[in-house]
């Protein structure tokens, strides 16, 4: 018998409205699923039973009056633990924030609550969202529901694993260089990074401010649309928040791709990409052609340098963003004889090796005498990447590539070699540098029965065309909300 935890958001919302399901039942099924899977997955850092139950009961009371508060009414949602939640511990996966209780909600969290969502808990991540496997979490790694000996990807690995396992119906992630899309690909779910500025960053614990963007992780493209429509919107508390119109994206889902021009990125379709991933992506492209899209190959020559530029810009910004964790006002404090000694000891004890590495890298890149050669140069490359995209979009409506060069890798297999871990993000980073939207849609399994994600990129504010293609990819791939073996027993398949 099937569990309500495996419904899509759209299905659950319909069942709730029809009275076929209560928010309390839905939450219980979700919490039961977490109980079943968390020992192996460790997708959550905090599960907030009490508040979640109270929110579900409140949702049921409103339903009993025949009303709903919004599109996420009664829907169990997980939030990546780098978004602050009033009264609920928020650590960003770092020991330096162990026990930290924020006094306010991130704007995206407020939006979820206003839309009626039931927040189940806070999900695991690479410390301060720095990583691609969740192995950099200060609280231990998460596992992939498709093979618990493998990583779920990262840094939003906990959110992706939770949605894949059914311990959350949808989740929020944050994406700085692929941190939503790559784990979504590795866990067989949909992950979307919106245009920079579309979702407020207020309350998102910053990693790299000019690249960070909050977005949805869901089981279907439609659910991603529903979630994005809830969290997108101008926020006066974020000076980089987009001030223009925020359209509805739902109508894109059924429009098909006939007449659309799809560009396959040459640089992301060969070397360094696993054969299974390549062939799966090729057959998706073929099906897009069958659905009426025009396919061409597009070269983005600056892709070659994008990764290097990213690994200067992001650490530079992070070196300043993480300076506030000094033991003075909140979080961990390791005492010392002087303020300087206290701060140094606190940071040495509180930050993990990858975060420390990036702070050092960023501090160095910004130092007098090195700024022009490193940070300045990286910003020029960023401009080139944007120009490459602009030029490419003169001839195509969307660009496509694999989301990740490989499927889920084994836990511990890349931790010793940071550079091999950095290469995991090669396909996703360019969209962050360009501030443009991008989505990963699960399309197939590889020989080891691990999910493969297909990435679609669109110009800034091109969410409508992005979702048009994503919906077609979802239909054509025949993925059909496939579930990982971990939950198949409960799922009743």
């Amino acid at each position: 018998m099937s569990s309500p935890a495996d419904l899509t958001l759209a299905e659950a919302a319909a069942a709730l409205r029809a009275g076929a399901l209560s928010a309390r039942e839905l939450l219980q099924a979700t919490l039961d699923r977490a109980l079943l899977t968390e020992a192996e997955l460790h997708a959550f850092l905090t599960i907030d039973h009490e508040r979640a139950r109270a929110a579900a009961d409140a949702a049921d009371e409103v339903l009993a009056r025949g009303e709903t508060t919004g599109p996420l009414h009664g829907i169990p949602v997980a939030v990546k633990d780098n978004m602050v939640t009033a009264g609920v511990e928020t650590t960003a996966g770092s020991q330096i924030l162990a026990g930290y209780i924020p006094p306010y909600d991130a704007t995206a969290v407020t939006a979820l609550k206003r839309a009626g969502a039931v927040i189940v808990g806070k999900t695991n991540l690479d410390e301060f969202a720095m990583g691609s496997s969740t192995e950099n979490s200060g609280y231990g790694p998460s596992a992939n529901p498709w093979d618990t000996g493998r990583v779920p990807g990262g840094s939003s690995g906990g959110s992706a694993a939770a949605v894949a396992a059914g311990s959350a119906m949808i989740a929020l992630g944050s994406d700085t260089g692929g941190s939503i899309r790559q784990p979504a690909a590795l866990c067989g779910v949909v992950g979307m990074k919106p245009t920079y500025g579309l979702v407020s960053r207020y309350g998102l614990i910053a990693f790299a401010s000019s690249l960070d963007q909050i977005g949805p992780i869901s089981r279907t493209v439609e659910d991603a649309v529903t979630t994005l429509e809830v969290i997108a919107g101008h926020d006066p508390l974020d000076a980089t928040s987009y001030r223009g119109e925020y359209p509805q994206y739902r109508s894109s889902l059924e429009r098909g791709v006939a007449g659309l021009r799809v560009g396959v990125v040459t640089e992301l379709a060969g070397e360094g990409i696993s054969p299974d991933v390549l062939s799966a992506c090729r057959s998706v492209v073929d099906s897009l052609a069958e659905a009426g899209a025009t396919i061409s190959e597009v070269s983005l020559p600056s892709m070659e340098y994008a990764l290097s530029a990213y690994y200067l810009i992001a650490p530079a910004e992070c070196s300043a963003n993480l300076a506030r964790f000094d033991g003075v006002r909140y979080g961990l404090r390791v005492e010392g004889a002087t303020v300087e000694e206290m701060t140094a000891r606190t940071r040495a004890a509180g930050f993990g090796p990858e975060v420390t590495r990036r702070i050092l890298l960023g501090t160095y890149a910004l130092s007098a005498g090195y700024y022009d050669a490193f940070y300045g140069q990286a910003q020029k490359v960023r401009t080139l990447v944007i120009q490459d995209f602009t030029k490419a979009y003169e001839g195509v409506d969307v660009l496509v590539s694999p989301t990740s060069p490989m499927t889920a890798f084994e836990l511990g297999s890349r931790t010793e070699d940071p550079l091999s871990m950095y290469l995991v993000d090669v396909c996703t980073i360019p969209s962050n540098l360009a501030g443009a939207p991008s989505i990963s849609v699960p399309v197939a399994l590889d020989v080891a029965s691990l999910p493969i994600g297909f990435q679609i990129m669109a110009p800034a504010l091109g969410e409508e065309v992005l979702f048009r293609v994503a919906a077609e990819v979802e239909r054509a791939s025949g993925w059909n909300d496939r579930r990982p073996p971990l939950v198949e027993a409960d799922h009743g398949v």
Partner: protein
Amino acid sequence: MEYEAVIGIETHVELATDSKMFCGCPAHFGADPNTNVCPVCLGLPGALPVPNEKAIEWIVMIGLALECEIAHRSQFHRKNYFYADQPKNYQISQFDVPVCSAGMLEIEADGRSTRVRINRVHMEEDTGKMIHIGGGGRIKDADHSLLDFNRSGIPLVEIVTEPDLATPQQARAYAQEVQATVLALGVSDAKLEEGSMRFDANVSLRPKGTGRLGTKVEVKNMNSFRSLERALTYEIERQTAALEAGEQIYLETRHWDESAGVTGGMRSKEESSDYRYFPEPDLVPIEITDTRRDAIRQGLPELPAARRSRFASLGLDPASVAVLMSGGLELAGIFEGACEAGADPKTIANWVTGEVTAFLRRESVQLGETPLTAEHLFELERLCAAGDLSSTAAKQVLVGVLAGEGSPAIVARARDLIQISDAGALATQIDQVLADHPEEYQRLRDGDAKIIGYLVGQVMQITAGRADPKVVSSILAEKARG
């Protein structure tokens, strides 16, 4: 060898906006510690800055008042350094593209006017305040320190000069002119003693007449114009003595010790600082169109230089103008109020720069703390013009008004200072004096006009100064003619 000083000044001005630079917290002084705070100005995880548009407008006003160029597009940068009073451990400031640059301020000092070039005027945020407990209040020796973040994030404007000042007197005149300008604009209360206006000076010496710059020393912690002047005088003497003794001047920051009258070095703690400036990614560039700039220029109030020359055109001497201008806006304001009501500018200026200033100094109060108004001054001047008060009596009445005894008419009556100018009323007193001084009376009758002055004095004496000397004098003159 003879040396000359090269001085540059950095001025920090806290803007008197209602809210802070990057959050909605109140920006006022005097609240209980850590009550005017929020996630943004406490640097809590996830908080983001949003610029205060009023502060941007005000820095443009300051820039325009200092004849600066206003950048169409300027940028906030992060200035990175760790300090416990700085919640983010970086300060949002400006680096290579400040809002205002290349300005000029003309000052009067050492008997001549000097044009001081302004290098830049930029926008930043203030830090919190630290109080060190134990160890004589120094961070190094303290048992512990207390932090108050009420000041954190208050808009701060930094005005940086070129090294165009040559003497401590010029430096003081510059500082006073900046204060007068900021007060005229109404963008800051500019109180040195409360720290809402702070001056740091860079001083170096060079052999007189040479063009190169010597090693500069930064002098901090001067909280009055007088201490700015004293500190620079001391520092120039110190550097001169050092150079003459063949010693080296070190690049360092020295703190002025007001009570000891010396600057003290902190060289041991000084490290070459690399602030690793980079563009603040949480903020978009500040855009100021020509239209907006021109609109702000249109709204500028009268600046001190213009006001000074207007006062001079009223016939006031330079010394009076200087005193009127130096008391901030208050003295000039009350002066102008009385003149606008129709009083004689010179009389009012004499009172304001004389009795009023003396009273304020004697009682250590601000004009605003006294009941004196422009209307009072006007009323007083009318009483004099009508002959009801002598100029001596007017000064006494003024002191009475300042002391809270009431309006000039009330004080004049209560103190019995109304002048007797009625000839009939004065006849008795004059006859009395003539009877008491027969010899002098005879000389008067003999037509000796020189004796009139003496007799008037005697009448003034027995009327306790209330007789109108003009009236007395004309009555006596009549009697002389027989």
